[in-house]
């Protein structure tokens, strides 16, 4: 991991610690822990030249992970993201870094050639797990209502998986609405080096 614009690497490494801790929480199942840990590990360690750059974008609550033409990966966080929301967002973007690295390792036609629907489903599942581990009251994309919650502390244990899946599906529907179904269906191989 390297420092990107306006983000000294050592500050990010410090910010990564709560995400790393949450990923190993005993409140999560083994599968949840494994997915969350893979997202954290994907960033690598400071100055390890793994091609991952982390930086701050403009004001706002957005974030992006970009697989560049030279196969390096750039992660950008909106400067308004703070606290537990930053911890979970780091996990979300880390999941995207992991997805891109997996595809790069596997080759153009590998099973890792995911479209945006699949990528977002995985990343929101990790983000939801981290919110659960942190004991957050609730978690939804900034500006989203209850229908977009991927975690709520008040959910009954028996309903957690159903409601988590419903929240993630609703987010995918919103993302399709805000971009397009055609673009959401595009895979890494359809976008990279095109």
């Amino acid at each position: 991991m390297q420092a990107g614009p306006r983000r000294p690497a050592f500050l990010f490494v410090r910010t990564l610690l709560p995400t790393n801790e949450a990923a190993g929480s005993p409140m999560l199942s083994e599968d949840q822990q494994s997915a969350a840990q893979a997202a954290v590990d994907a960033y690598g360690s400071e100055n390890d030249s793994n091609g991952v750059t982390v930086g701050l974008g403009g004001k706002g609550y957005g974030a992006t992970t970009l697989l560049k033409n030279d196969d390096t990966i750039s992660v950008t966080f909106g400067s308004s993201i703070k606290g537990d929301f930053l911890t979970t967002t780091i996990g979300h973007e880390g999941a995207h870094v992991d997805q891109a690295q997996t595809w790069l390792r596997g080759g153009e036609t590998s099973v890792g050639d995911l479209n945006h629907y699949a990528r977002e489903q995985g990343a929101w599942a990790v983000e939801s797990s981290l919110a659960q581990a942190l004991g957050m009251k609730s978690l939804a994309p900034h500006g989203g209502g209850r229908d977009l919650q991927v975690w709520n502390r008040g959910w009954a244990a028996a309903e957690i998986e159903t409601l988590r899946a419903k929240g993630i599906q609703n987010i995918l529907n919103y993302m399709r609405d805000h971009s397009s179904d055609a673009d959401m269906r595009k895979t890494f191989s359809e976008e990279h080096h095109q």
Partner: protein
Amino acid sequence: MKPLFISSIILLTNCAVAGAANKPQNVAQDVTYCELAKSPSAFSGKRIRVRAIYSYMFEVSRLKPPACCAEGDVAVWVDFSEEMDGNSKRLFHKFPKGMGFVLATFEGVFQSGGPFGDGGYRFKLAVDKIEAVENKANPSPAHRPAWIPNCEAPSAVSRGNKG
């Protein structure tokens, strides 16, 4: 010595022309969304003014057509400059928080090449001026207002092509 002198003049002239071509114009070119969708590369490096819907949420920041285009659509990522003028900043801060749709006229430099955003965008508009906000909302997919066209529906183009 004379040929070298002439060569130098030609070289300097070429540099000046190349410099002018690379530098965005100060005066924005008015472009309809559908013109942009039809041949986006034609506007690469140019300063443009376009009436469009800004659509955004976590990991999405893009333009959408104010009316469906027969030419199809183009994925244009949107960034807002921190150097926007005061009026533009005021308008920007009144956008729905976190996610929404805003129909307005946007001005900025259009870029090609990419990838931009999450990797799915070959084009980007770096907005430094916002004018004439006509509509804004943060609706659920089931309650989309009429001013946000659904251009992926089968009969979308026949429902509007004003661009």
